[in-house]
């Protein structure tokens, strides 16, 4: 009889920190101690606290160990597993207060979260269908096939108020209704797992931690709209997610939960995986379907919408991974339960990927309407190194920034749009006082310029010109006229681009202009970068504190520093490449950056 479970995170974050070797070491030592019948070692998906990985949880105590290395394993096995003494040294400590916290559920990081889409991530072994079934897996599908008509399923999803989690926020039930109403015998169900926003990784985490939840929800969607074939479009650079999806598909088919005559109910539904090469534009629905068809991933004008004419010209629904991950819970617990969470127009929970200048980098799932302050200060553990919060970028390269003045805004679809940002897929990049907002806007625009597919001119050329304006500003060569022209160009690109990529690409520029115009003006008029980030505007100078030791001159890679020993040295600005080596080298703090 198994009396203890050791859960080792196998998500991408912990995997890259060698969690696979930690798991093997546990297995070896448990066997050596003759405990293999008493203790089960289980690989799971992501727990969410990626910043402190690899993480290990030992049940029944629920002890949460973080940053576990292979050499720590023996201590956990001998002390905790054999003798029942928690290894205090290795328990996760909240960085704000250094008391060791025992259970995961005791941490501030988890207390304020509500895990619906991520409910099984870090709890079950994603490669074991029986564990998914133990947590009510495939019960929602059984309920739909045996108790509900397709229209009743759609009504439940509609009533729940679930909106698309991929970014647009379109009501999911409406989408299903349109596809169900479209005439035709052949329809398709697609899953958008082409997660492209830099800094967002919740879809990957769900596929890695709970792949069956997505398969089950897609089968339910197929039943609801009358489709018998589905496709999961996932990017090839998610190898662990793809691997676990393949295992899950094989297990579901073996159990007869996918394929012909599912569970002897007469309903047929099959799924296939399609790998994408990782182009950002393929996250756009029409480009994604074009790519599944085997063509170059380029968008096409809408209408016709996919619900009418989608994949292979047939009615199609396309939902995001996180959207699907909510479906089974809505069917089992009822639309009222789901609608009881969140705000008036945004129901349920949303997963955010916290990144940037924040203590607890990782994945968090919060009810809609939670304030940005709670997410960043309570759950995220605040800004490291005592710095001040400046802004948070939501929605990745398509979104905008939220400045400190909106720190207490409840996060939902409509509030974010009203302040010039958007939900997007849920990336949340936190910036502190050291981040230059013009540089941030430039960073995101560089990304969209790289990723523009080139089909329509406003996006292909317009964004390139926009980036050139930003380069001009950050190198101190722009005029106020340029600033005005740039803003007009933003509106032009938004109004005329073919797909979401181009229509949203200028958002980072517009939102930083809205909240941080003074920083732009400082770059343009004063020729200064207030945060000393933009290299073209930074100057290094040597002050009178210089002792003339010549250390900086010897380190300078371009020979821009000259002077006589024991007298003040000078930097030649025409030669200086602003690498900052001199500043690091000086022992007398005699070099300043301004």
């Amino acid at each position, binding site marked *: 009889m*198994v009396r203890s479970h050791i859960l080792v995170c196998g998500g991408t974050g912990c995997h890259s920190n060698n969690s696979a070797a930690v798991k093997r070491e546990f297995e070896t030592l448990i066997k050596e101690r003759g405990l293999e019948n008493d203790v089960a070692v289980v690989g799971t998906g992501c727990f969410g606290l990626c910043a402190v990985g690899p993480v290990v949880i030992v049940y029944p105590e*629920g002890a949460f160990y973080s940053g576990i290395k292979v050499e720590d394993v023996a201590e956990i096995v001998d002390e905790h597993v054999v003798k029942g003494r928690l290894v205090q040294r290795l328990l996760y400590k909240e960085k704000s207060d250094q008391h060791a916290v025992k259970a*995961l559920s005791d941490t501030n990081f988890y207390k304020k979260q509500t895990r619906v889409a991520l409910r099984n991530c870090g709890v079950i072994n994603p490669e074991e269908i*029986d564990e998914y079934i133990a947590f009510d897996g495939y019960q929602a599908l059984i309920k739909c096939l045996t108790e509900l008509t397709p229209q009743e399923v759609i009504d439940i999803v509609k009533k729940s108020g679930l909106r698309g989690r991929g970014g647009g926020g379109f009501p999911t039930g409406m989408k299903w209704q349109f596809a169900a109403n479209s005439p035709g015998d052949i329809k398709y169900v697609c899953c958008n797992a082409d997660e492209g926003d830099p800094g967002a990784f919740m879809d990957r985490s769900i596929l890695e931690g709970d792949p069956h939840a997505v398969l089950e929800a897609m089968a339910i969607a197929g039943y609801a709209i009358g489709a018998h074939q589905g496709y999961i479009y996932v990017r090839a650079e998610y190898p662990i997610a793809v691997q676990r999806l393949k295992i899950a598909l094989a297990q579901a088919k073996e*159990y007869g939960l996918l394929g012909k005559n599912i569970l002897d109910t007469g309903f047929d539904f099959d799924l296939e995986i399609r790998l994408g090469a990782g182009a950002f534009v393929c996250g756009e629905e029409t480009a994604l379907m074009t790519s599944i068809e085997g063509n170059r991933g380029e968008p096409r004008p809408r209408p016709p919408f996919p619900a009418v004419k989608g994949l292979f010209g047939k009615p199609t629904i396309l939902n995001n991974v996180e959207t699907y991950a909510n479906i089974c819970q809505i069917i089992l617990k009822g639309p009222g339960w789901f609608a009881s969470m969140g705000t008036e127009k945004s129901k349920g929970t949303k997963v955010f990927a916290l990144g940037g200048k924040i203590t607890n980098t990782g994945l968090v799932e919060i009810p809609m309407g939670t304030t940005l302050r709670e997410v960043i200060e309570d759950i995220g553990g605040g800004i490291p190194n005592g710095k001040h919060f400046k802004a948070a970028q939501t929605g990745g390269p398509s979104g905008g920034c939220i400045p400190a003045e909106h720190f207490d805004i409840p996060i939902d679809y409509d509030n974010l749009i009203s302040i010039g940002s958007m939900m997007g897929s849920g990336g949340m990049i936190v910036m502190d006082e050291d981040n230059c907002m013009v540089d941030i806007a430039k960073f995101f625009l560089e990304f969209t310029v790289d990723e523009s597919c080139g089909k329509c001119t406003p996006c292909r050329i317009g964004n390139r010109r926009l980036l050139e304006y930003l380069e001009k500003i950050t190198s101190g060569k722009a005029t106020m006229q340029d600033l005005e022209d740039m803003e007009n160009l933003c509106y032009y690109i938004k109004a005329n681009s073919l797909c979401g990529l181009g229509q949203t690409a200028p958002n980072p520029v517009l939102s930083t202009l809205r909240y941080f115009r003074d920083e732009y003006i400082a770059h343009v008029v004063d020729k200064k970068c207030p945060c000393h980030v933009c290299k073209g505007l930074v100057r290094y100078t040597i002050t009178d504190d210089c002792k003339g030791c010549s250390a900086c001159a010897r380190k300078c890679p371009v020979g821009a520093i000259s002077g006589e020993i024991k007298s003040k040295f000078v930097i030649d600005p025409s030669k200086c490449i602003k690498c900052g080596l001199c500043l690091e080298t000086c022992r007398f703090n005699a070099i300043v950056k301004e």
Partner: protein
Amino acid sequence: MKSIADIKAIRDKMQSQIVLRDNQDAEQEIRIVVGMATCGISAGARPVFNALVDEVAARNLHNVKVTRSGCLGMCKLEPIVEVHIPGEDPVTYVLVNPEKAKNIVANHIVNGNICKDYLITNN
């Protein structure tokens, strides 16, 4: 291919194992704590522990968790088992063996009668 009944059977079978990982109602659950330091183990705590786990599983007691603790200081009375029921004082049983362990689950946990014979006595 499985039938709907097969899936339900898998679910029921797996749930008894998975219940270990449920930390949701930590304040509501009954905890049975076995002293598993060196003294406890050498006195036979491991078979006691296994007997408790088996008995709890056999009776499908989902709100009962069997866990380990270190040495309680009374090494000569090991194996020691403590029962913590929310809202009641903890009860300490000493010199427990697998058979006594099963009785503790049956009498104390299920029926609410403390097994007075296994308690510490003053002499």
